[in-house]
């Protein structure tokens, strides 16, 4: 298998889907002539032309709505947000238009659209540019939310997202774009709504997704040195969330830790914990613990930022606690 960056895996997915289906187009800020703010759309303008790779003004609400309108009448837009931080301006279109159209039209208008872009913090971008929005999005019925953490998953899931007939929120990561991994040359897709056991173990279940799956894996490596075998579950899709795969694992390990990039209150982890307490109540030998960003706007100073973010050490500490080792 070829070794490919996360960025190029996304680029491949976009190119292949645009070749496969001429209703698919990419729209957003700097996607065309600039080749993408993070170069995800490199070469696409040259291949597909400016009707299918559309540079927009800096007008997130506007072009998000343009995407929804185009989707209402049969196109399959991929709307790139330069980052999800800017997408907050567009949330009215995402929530009030994309998510609800099918229901409020009594099933007449489904919205096959992908909103994608980097989510969460990078490095030293301070408060307004370092936010993880997945719990906001996953709260909304009518949306699907996907957060891949590896190049393989990014490509397979983006292809599925583009083919899906519902609005799909696709959360990438600025810190992920250069991550390399194996990606098959041949065509493949990964189904939405299915979690993956990324590593098997029987002492504790670590549930994570997106960028944080790499943190979970690091933590599992550290734990292995102490003879602790952690099972690592990558949710991949946050809505609909595959609670059954989580439950299967927790029934085996009797304990779980959830790692997420965003804030604690009403976070994705809270939802996972809810499923676990419902599905695995009689299997739990310890309360489920969560690892997440400290409950503050992201600070700029390097040391403060590091302290605010979830990391492998914090994950290890939580695991030791649910194992009654502390």
């Amino acid at each position, binding site marked *: 298998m070829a070794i490919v960056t996360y960025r190029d895996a996304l680029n491949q997915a976009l190119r292949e889907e645009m070749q496969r289906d001429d209703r698919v187009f990419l729209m957003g800020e700097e996607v065309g002539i600039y080749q993408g703010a993070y170069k995800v759309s490199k070469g696409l303008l040259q291949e597909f032309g400016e009707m299918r790779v559309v540079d927009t003004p800096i007008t997130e609400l506007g072009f998000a709505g343009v995407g929804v309108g185009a989707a209402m009448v049969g196109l399959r837009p991929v709307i790139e947000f330069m980052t999800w931080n800017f997408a907050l301006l567009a949330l009215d279109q995402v929530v009030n238009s994309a998510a609800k159209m099918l229901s409020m039209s009594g099933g007449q208008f489904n919205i096959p659209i992908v909103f994608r872009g980097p989510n969460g913090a990078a490095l030293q971008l301070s408060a307004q540019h370092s936010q993880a929005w997945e719990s906001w999005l996953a709260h909304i019925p009518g949306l699907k939310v996907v957060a891949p953490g590896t190049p393989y998953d990014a490509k397979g899931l983006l292809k599925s997202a583009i083919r899906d007939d519902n609005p799909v929120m696709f959360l990438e990561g600025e810190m992920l774009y250069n991550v390399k991994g194996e990606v098959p040359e041949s065509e493949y897709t990964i189904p939405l709504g299915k979690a993956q056991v990324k590593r098997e173990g*029987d*002492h504790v279940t670590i549930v994570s997704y997106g960028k944080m799956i790499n943190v979970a894996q690091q933590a599992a490596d550290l734990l292995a040195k*102490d*003879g*602790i*075998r952690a099972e690592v579950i990558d949710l991949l899709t946050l809505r609909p969330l595959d609670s059954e795969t989580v439950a299967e694992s927790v029934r085996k390990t*009797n304990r779980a830790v959830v790692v997420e990039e965003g804030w604690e209150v009403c976070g994705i982890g809270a939802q996972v914990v809810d499923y676990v307490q419902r599905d695995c*109540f*009689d*299997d*739990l*030998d*310890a309360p489920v613990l969560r690892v997440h960003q400290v409950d503050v706007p992201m600070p700029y100073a390097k040391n403060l930022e590091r302290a605010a973010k979830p990391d492998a050490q914090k994950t290890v500490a939580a695991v030791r606690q649910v*194992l*009654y*080792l502390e």
Partner: protein
Amino acid sequence: MATKVTMEALSPTMEEGRLVKWLKAEGDAIAKGDVLAEVETDKAVMELVARGAGVLRARLAAEGDTRPVGELLAVIAEKDENIDAILKKAPAPAVPASSAPSAPSAPSASSASSASSTVVPQPTASTPPSHPNGGGRARSSPLARRLASSRGLDLGTLQGTGPGGRIIRLDIDAAASTELSGAPTAAAARTAAPVMRAAGDSEDIPLTQIRKTIARRLAESNGPIPTFFLTADFDLTSVRELRAQMIAMGDEFKVSYNDILIKAIATALSQHPEVNAHWLGDSIRRHHRVHLGMAVAVDDGLITPIIADADTKRISEIARESRELAKRARERKLAPEEYTGATCTVSNLGMFGIDEFTAIINPPEVAIFAGGAGGDVPVVLDGTLAVRTRVRITMSCDHRAVDGAMGARFMQTLRRLIENPLMLVF
């Protein structure tokens, strides 16, 4: 506010207890934490500690009485407090409460509800904190509750080792194996280092298909634990010499044959984790530490105190520890954590002149070693008759986990160690 003193479950399996000795008299002032009495459980003599303060107003059991768990033994209350309602509910005391005041009785409901604090008995050795929610429901993880229910265990009789005294899976496993074997051999929550305190202490090997088939077929043929036996003679000549040398070095190095055999078996177990294991039904737990149980006869039965990490201890340490444990076992002074958590067990009837015997495995352990009487026997060495000191050891193996060749290889290792005992010293 009155405090009821009741017979509490002082060991995982206790259903009733014998009041050995009152340490406080009626009328004595009682501070919280005072030892009120000694109570003999099925395993040991424990102390009953007061959790409330006041005056010991009534003793409702005589020394020597046996009382079921939960029955009222005494009442601690303020000097002038009316305790009639409490006393009325008590069973007829063997010794009448001589100084019960004869004040008009208060409505029983209010008196009973005012007796809200309880006495929690405490083993003589330190234990994890007891339930912080007072005499109410024991705190426990949902998993522990489910397991307890399916194994017929009463959570109220268990001591939790989790935070705040929470009963966790570990505690259930410990109690369940005690109950199964009738002898305490569980992988218990040891105060210092319970099994889960380090996940690296053991590993669970999932059963292969062939292993499942062996387990099922052999169990069908030979009872729940399909046991087979391996017996071998071991030459003790070198052991005898080593022992003589150690005794010559002084009393502190005085060791018995049995101590050396324990060290040898423990060392062999550390090299054969497949034998130093527990059968868990759907997996086999291999222990990376060796906690060797040592059967000790007491007047009316037997108990198996544990030499923890026996493979890493010096023979003289084992000697000292085993003497002390045996003595306290006979006095019934062992704390629960001193007789739970064995990974394997040794029994020796040599001192009774038994040449050889087969011992019964304590589940979930998968082997037990039975030592007979050592002695001089004629043997043929290099074609000539010679006299050698020999001992016969029989290994009982649970065939679900240990196959014949596996056990035989263990015995080979054991022979190498016993016949070259310097390997045990260095």
